[in-house]
């Protein structure tokens, strides 16, 4: 036993070393040089020159922006500092509890430890190289379509006073704040995947997988959509707060994980009822509250657009929770707390790309669609195709993300955000496809790397005994 874990440890360390090396190797496909022209537009929300919301850029979205030299605004900065705290709250303790409440009692500690460890690993990876890959500006404009280069590794080009723009669009907050805001997105995305392989993955495999995924899947896709790459600037996919980058991406990766890793032992035979739905309720609530930072924070300013994004978030989430509850009530004859919580998360997911583009009526409809759609996905799709997406990472984030991405193209309202004037469900679909392909293929490759180094699944005995004791040597002693 002791021996085995020492080996695991060695693997983990090798993995970390590997990352350092890989990070210095260019991973960008070479592309024709094509400059990413920044189209000027209005700026900041200072108190003296109140922004016309319709013309306010959503720098986290894909709107081209004008003034690439805005001074930091203390109000915008205040809101973004708060948003960082809110989005981190989503992962720890939010997501940790949301998932932790749904597993069996013998895996609770291991499940919450996954979210916590991912928070730590991605923080370091982001600081070391992912921020540079995602939000750096590659000096070669052709390569910049695909990745940001390594010019900002160890955050070496982040300064205190440099006027600061992302994808040619000025931001009214200091770069350190922007970097932190984006880091919290980079943290929660891989953490979401854990729902798909709950109760069976090795901890060493988790650490290695998340390190590589963060670098080779998340960072490039974030660059494509938000960092000046081809999906945002050129194709014009509307994704206000990360429906594609975060949710479709994580959902698809989760599906691949579930397929590759196989089912939990005893699925369909053992009682796998959630151990503590109070934890899940706390988790869902903190996800909800924290998502205000996620969506309204994606305005990167304290303005009317942030307010509208917040309102849309709230309305879609409530509608989705009620829709899931009613759907389940009709099908299974009981309205459940787990249904309310799941529906709320489905609504949060679906409204994410739409939050800064649609009006409240659009948000309401998106919520209803997501609540019913994800319920069907989590219950029937999984059953039909017989994969074990244990806590419905794909069922909620994949399907909800897809519904939200497409409907953003349907409901975008220029009265809310002029950047959404041109919108089409088809363009949105293209954006999804790009993400699905890259995420699916590279996730699979990374799983293979893990399989042949650390191994993917714990032993049968460990799965039976529970990961808490087998991996961590810890147990809940509630009685």
């Amino acid at each position: 036993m002791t021996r085995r874990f020492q080996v695991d440890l060695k693997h983990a360390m090798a993995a970390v070393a590997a990352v350092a090396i890989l990070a210095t190797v260019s991973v960008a496909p070479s592309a024709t040089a094509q400059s990413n022209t920044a189209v000027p537009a209005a700026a900041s929300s200072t108190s003296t020159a109140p922004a016309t919301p319709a013309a306010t850029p959503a720098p986290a979205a894909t709107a081209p922006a004008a003034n690439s030299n805005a001074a930091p605004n203390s109000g915008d900065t205040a809101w973004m500092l708060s948003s960082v705290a809110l989005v981190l709250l989503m992962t720890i303790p939010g997501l940790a509890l949301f998932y932790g409440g749904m597993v069996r009692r013998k895996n609770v500690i291991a499940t919450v430890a996954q979210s916590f460890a991912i928070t730590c690993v991605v923080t370091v990876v982001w600081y070391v190289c992912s921020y540079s890959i995602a939000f750096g500006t590659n000096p070669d404009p052709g390569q910049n379509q695909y990745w940001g280069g390594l010019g900002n590794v160890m955050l070496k080009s982040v300064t205190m006073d440099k006027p600061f723009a992302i994808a040619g669009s000025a931001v009214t907050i200091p770069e350190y704040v922007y970097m932190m805001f984006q880091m919290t997105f980079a943290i929660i995305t891989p953490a979401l995947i854990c729902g798909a392989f709950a109760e069976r993955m090795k901890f060493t495999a988790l650490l290695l997988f998340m390190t590589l995924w963060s670098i080779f899947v998340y960072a490039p896709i974030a660059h494509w959509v938000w960092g000046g790459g081809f999906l945002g600037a050129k194709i014009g996919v509307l994704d206000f707060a990360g429906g594609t980058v975060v949710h479709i991406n994580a959902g698809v990766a989760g599906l691949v994980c579930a397929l590759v890793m196989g089912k939990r032992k005893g699925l369909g035979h053992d009682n796998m009822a959630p151990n503590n739905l109070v934890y899940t309720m706390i988790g869902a609530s903190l996800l909800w509250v924290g998502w205000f930072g996620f969506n309204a924070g994606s305005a990167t300013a304290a303005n009317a657009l942030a307010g509208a994004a917040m309102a849309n978030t709230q309305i879609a989430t409530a509608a989705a929770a009620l829709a899931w509850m009613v759907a389940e009530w009709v099908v299974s004859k009981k309205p459940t707390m787990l249904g309310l919580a799941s529906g709320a998360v489905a609504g949060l997911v679906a409204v994410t790309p739409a939050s800064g583009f649609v009006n409240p009526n659009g948000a309401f409809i998106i919520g209803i669609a997501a609540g019913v759609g994800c319920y069907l996905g989590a219950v029937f799709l999984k059953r039909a195709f017989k994969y074990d997406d244990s806590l419905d990472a794909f069922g909620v984030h994949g399907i909800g993300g897809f519904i939200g991405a497409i409907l953003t193209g349907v409901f975008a309202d220029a009265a809310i955000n002029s950047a959404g004037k041109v919108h089409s469900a088809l363009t949105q679909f293209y954006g999804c496809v790009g993400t699905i392909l890259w995420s699916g293929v590279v996730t699979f490759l990374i799983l293979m790397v893990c399989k042949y180094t650390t191994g993917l699944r714990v032993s049968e005995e460990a799965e039976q005994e529970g990961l808490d004791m087998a991996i961590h040597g810890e147990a809940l002693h509630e009685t």
Partner: protein
Amino acid sequence: MKMVVAIIKPFKIDDVRDALVAAGVEGMTVTEAHGHGRQKGHTEIYRGAEYKATFLPKMRIEAVIQDELVAKAIEAIKGAASSDKIGDGKIFVLPVEEAVRIRTGETGLTAL
């Protein structure tokens, strides 16, 4: 001496205790248990996955008493634990050969 073991519904525990005390039973030990029998359990459904609870919450009372008290104790339990519904539970009587009070070392009936 006999050990009377009763399996009852959890919400009856206070009534049964009072009835036993009234019947002259001075000590008893209770554990939480789950029972399988004729009574059917509910089904929990979590995102479509159904878990049929074939074990239902019960309380298990065990009291060691002198032989003469057995009939009275059984009556007391029957009276207090019955709700006339399936699943009210059982009473079993087992022989006991010795009893010791740890504090004093007393044995036999005086130890109860």
